[in-house]
């Protein structure tokens, strides 16, 4: 009986298969190389205008209007692009003091950011101040290890979001830093912080095993690495303690990496950790080329950084 049901179901789908398989050869070659581009920023800290000519080593760098044209040209080149931010969008220029983050979110929406995670400074006007600006953000906030259930932010963030680009599934989840000791408790109120490693293990299992994602990205505001605090969780530690994460996009420590760091995960597989400094001075760009597994070179994925 089971078998018959099986065949019946199969026949129901026949029309589709027949249409698609007029030539079986073309069907297999349909699975050729695909390219996904990930663009990212972190710790922009309300730096909407470019730095002036007198601003030391940052002179004449940054500026949202320039970033916009760069992103547009990259999207024209590859429409299968995701634009992500790793937090600390707020605080650092009078734009934040005057408008409370409204312009930051509006501009990120105009630049078509796909997702962002929250940094500690995004609580600088309190969790209520953050909530007030949400209407201006047309992108998804992802946060897997802040439990907002007893706060006004409840239901306004998701632990992860899955994007579909060119038939590929890209899972993006967010990880935030411990707020206690960094942010006044009256600001974050009843936001609960959950251990990043455990949550990331859950996230990668859900995204890989259940949702069958082709690419898994962690947007993290933990900080790149803490040399003087060996027990403090960081992106490098998280990368080494988890599996199935392809890329950690970090923030918080304002680390200027000239290229992404290749880290071995808990299974010994290479993955990437990246961070591009702060203040919108740089844009990170990571291209993932997808091919059928059999075309993978003998020594695995080639990482060119």
């Amino acid at each position, binding site marked *: 009986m089971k078998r018959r049901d099986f065949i019946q179901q199969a026949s129901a789908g026949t029309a589709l298969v027949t249409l698609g398989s007029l030539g079986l050869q073309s069907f297999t070659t349909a699975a050729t190389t695909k390219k996904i581009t990930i663009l990212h920023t972190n710790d922009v800290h309300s730096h909407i205008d470019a730095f002036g000519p007198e601003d030391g080593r940052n002179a004449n760098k940054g500026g949202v209007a320039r970033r916009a044209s760069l992103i547009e040209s990259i999207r024209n080149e590859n429409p299968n692009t995701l634009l992500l931010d790793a937090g600390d969008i707020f605080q650092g220029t009078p734009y934040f003091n005057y408008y409370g983050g409204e312009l930051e979110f509006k501009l990120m929406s105009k630049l078509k950011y796909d997702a962002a995670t929250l940094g500690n400074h995004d609580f600088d006007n309190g969790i209520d101040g953050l909530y007030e600006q949400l209407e201006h953000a047309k992108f998804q906030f992802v946060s897997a290890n802040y439990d907002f259930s007893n706060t006004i932010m409840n239901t306004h963030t998701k632990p992860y979001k899955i994007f579909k680009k060119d038939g590929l599934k890209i899972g993006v989840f967010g990880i935030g830093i411990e707020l206690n000791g960094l942010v006044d408790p*009256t600001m974050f109120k009843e936001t609960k912080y959950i251990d990043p490693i455990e949550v990331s293990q859950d996230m990668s299992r859900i995204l890989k095993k259940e949702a069958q994602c082709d*690419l898994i990205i962690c947007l993290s505001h933990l900080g790149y690495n803490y040399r003087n605090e060996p027990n403090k969780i960081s992106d490098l530690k998280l990368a080494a303690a988890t599996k199935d994460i392809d890329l950690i996009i970090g923030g918080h420590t304002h680390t200027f*990496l*000239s290229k992404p760091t290749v880290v071995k995960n808990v299974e010994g597989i290479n993955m990437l950790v990246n961070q591009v400094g702060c203040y919108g001075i740089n844009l990170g760009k990571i291209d993932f080329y997808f091919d059928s597994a059999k075309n993978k070179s003998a020594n695995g994925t080639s990482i060119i*950084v």
Partner: protein
Amino acid sequence: MRLTHLIFLLYFFSFLNCKQLKLEPTKIEGKLIQITDTLLVDPEIESYIKPFRNHIQKDLDSVLAYSVNTYSKSDGLFNTAIGNFMADAVYSEANPVFKSRTGKNIDMVLLNHGGIRSILPKGHVTKRTAYEIMPFENSIVVVALKSNQIDSLVNYLCRKKKAHPISKLKLTINENGKIIETKIKGEAIKSDKIYYVATNDYLYNGGDNMTFFQTNDSLYVLNYKIRNALIDNFKKIDTINPVIDDRFVQIK
């Protein structure tokens, strides 16, 4: 099995086979792109930002007060005119807030010399001046301290011999740096009194090695930024004319 079934099966298997051709990342390229002035400015984004920018510029540059002279934190040995102005401004702006919430008065103010980030220039004083003097987001907190902690605070100031801004505290040291007189609001320190000291959250958390704030009776967070206290003070006064006085002096 009928032939059609067999064909269905064949198709089905080929379908399965197709599913097995799951794509994997075979090559990853990462790079950093600098946002420099060689990039084009997106005109739509630029024109969207413009009214926000203009409003801020106009507001930052609107004149709030007039400064009689240029005051720098390097003018003065144990107290400076600009530091005195800041500490007094924090007292006069924060005390009504503290009093309305607690019914108590602030007894003294202590800020840090390093927290004065710019000069107070002669001429028109604007909000921009406040942003330049205090670019950080530090807020005023009031800490309840016992007299022995006030002693630690005073010892710290005498040891550092630096013009950390103070208000309502008067300190006199002799030529050897020993304390001759300590007064808060004109009175000697009483051993059984709790003193309410206004400072900023940075110092409260041990900034500049001010460790004496940490074993306190109570902390009152005013949610009032130092910069906003300066702006509020600029709005209230027409002419700024602070002086180096006798609040912290060495007698030789």
